[in-house]
């Protein structure tokens, strides 16, 4: 899948893209509208993501990045348009030839393809690290306890925390908690992983460890990733494409070299300048 479009080279000024974006479509936003009261956050937003593609969403605070991820995770109701995942409507379900609002059963069947890591980790404080990782697979996927445990151990190896398997979340640093949260999401074997500013609640010295884990996942798996981050060098390393959002619209998009190296839109330039100035 990764190599399927490798013949199509990007047209950026001399810089080779880190990876080629694969073809096809795994996610499609079709005229998606999201409002909070009278505040229209997304106004007929269209965009799509290819299988295995890693997309970084950037943009000023309040531009709707979190809302996009939350809609995909079915944590928010949609007010208009349709979100498609794997050619199936996510927010809706088919009834005859019409689309009606999804019910809980439909949501549970489409959600299983999607995992999310939150800014505040949201580990379960009433469980050990092990249970945090195994309860989802055991109870949502019907995986056996042994298999779930084995997978938890592998994933904790991957995020460098195998000695913490029986620790309690409150005994971990923020960076360790976030790595457990990443392992927890991966334990569900999602096709799509949503990452919402996963390092912005961390002390600066803990950021690199979490980003290294994500780099590793990007290199060793073909999980489709949607990543909201202000870590520009990380975005440059892992993403095939960067979407610059402003006021719920895609203001500019392109490979990271282009967006970070040679942005065309004034809004992108001033946003990047502001991010760089604040470190």
């Amino acid at each position: 899948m990764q190599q399927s479009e490798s013949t199509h080279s990007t047209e950026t000024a001399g810089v080779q893209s880190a990876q080629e974006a694969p073809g096809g479509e795994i996610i499609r936003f079709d005229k998606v509208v999201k409002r909070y009261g009278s505040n229209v956050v997304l106004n007929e937003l269209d965009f799509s993501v290819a299988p295995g593609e890693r997309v970084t969403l950037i943009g000023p605070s309040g531009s709707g990045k979190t809302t996009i991820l939350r809609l995909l995770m079915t944590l928010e109701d949609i007010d208009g348009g349709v979100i498609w995942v794997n050619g199936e409507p996510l927010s809706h379900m088919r009834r005859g030839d019409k689309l009606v609002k999804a019910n809980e059963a439909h949501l549970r069947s489409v959600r299983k393809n999607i995992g999310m890591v939150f800014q505040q980790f949201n580990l379960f404080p009433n469980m050990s690290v092990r249970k945090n990782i195994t309860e989802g697979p055991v109870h949502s996927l019907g995986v056996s306890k042994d298999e779930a445990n084995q997978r938890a151990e592998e994933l904790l190896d991957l995020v460098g925390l195998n000695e913490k398997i029986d620790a309690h979340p409150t005994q971990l640093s923020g960076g360790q908690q976030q790595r457990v949260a990443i392992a927890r999401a991966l334990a569900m074997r999602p096709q799509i992983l949503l990452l919402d500013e996963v390092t912005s609640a961390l002390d600066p010295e803990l950021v690199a460890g979490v980003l290294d884990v994500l780099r590793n996942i990007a290199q060793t798996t073909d999980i489709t990733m949607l990543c909201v981050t202000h870590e520009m060098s990380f975005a440059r390393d892992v993403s095939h494409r960067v979407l610059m959002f402003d006021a719920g619209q895609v203001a500019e998009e392109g490979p990271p070299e282009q967006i970070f190296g040679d942005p065309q839109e004034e809004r992108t330039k001033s946003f990047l300048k502001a991010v760089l100035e604040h470190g």
Partner: protein
Amino acid sequence: MEFFLNRFPLYLDGALITLLMTVLGSAVAFVLAMVIGILGTLRNPVARAVATVYTEAFRGVAALILLFWFAYAVPQITPYQLSPMFAGVLALGLNVGAYGAEVVRAAINAVPRAQTEATIALNMSWARRMWLVVLPQAWAQMLPTFGNLIIELMKASAIVSLIGVADLTQVAEEQRSSSGETVLAFGSALVMYFVIAQVLIFGMRLLERRANRRLGRAPAGGGLLDLLRPPTPGTKVGAAK
């Protein structure tokens, strides 16, 4: 002292009946509180209406009137004669359950939304979310108030003496009238009630401590004697920081 020692077996029998009423009444109250409390957190308007009607109705009715209703009115309008103890358990359970339901509802609503969102991201069913994540976290928050409600229920159980249940209050009243020693008769009951309350409080603090441990909030120190002191207010239930 001699008065009390001589009659200790009688008072003990009364105390055991009081304890039995408390345990059974609390069991009924607990089940009602959980069911009605959870109904009150649902989006479904029918479920919420049921919860509201129950809590408002049974919070507003004196437990004593409920008791008389079950003991004296129910046999008149139905073919059923409830035993006095059963009537007492029902009246106490329904009354305290209404308060408990509010505690359950509030504790569930106090579990951070982010915790529920994490369970949704793991694609858990509603039942799994409640059972694995929401209720265990809400539990720690419910326990202190549950402790108070159990003590209230235990004290309120004295009303069953009015329909002829031989509880601690009934024993005290009998001993007063047979011996004429008002001060000693009721003084002895006072001591017994106090002891029962302390036992219940101790048990509830053990449960609280265990619940807090599970949430990774073990209090410092922590000998058993600590449980005799009022607990320091715990940190807020919530997402890991």
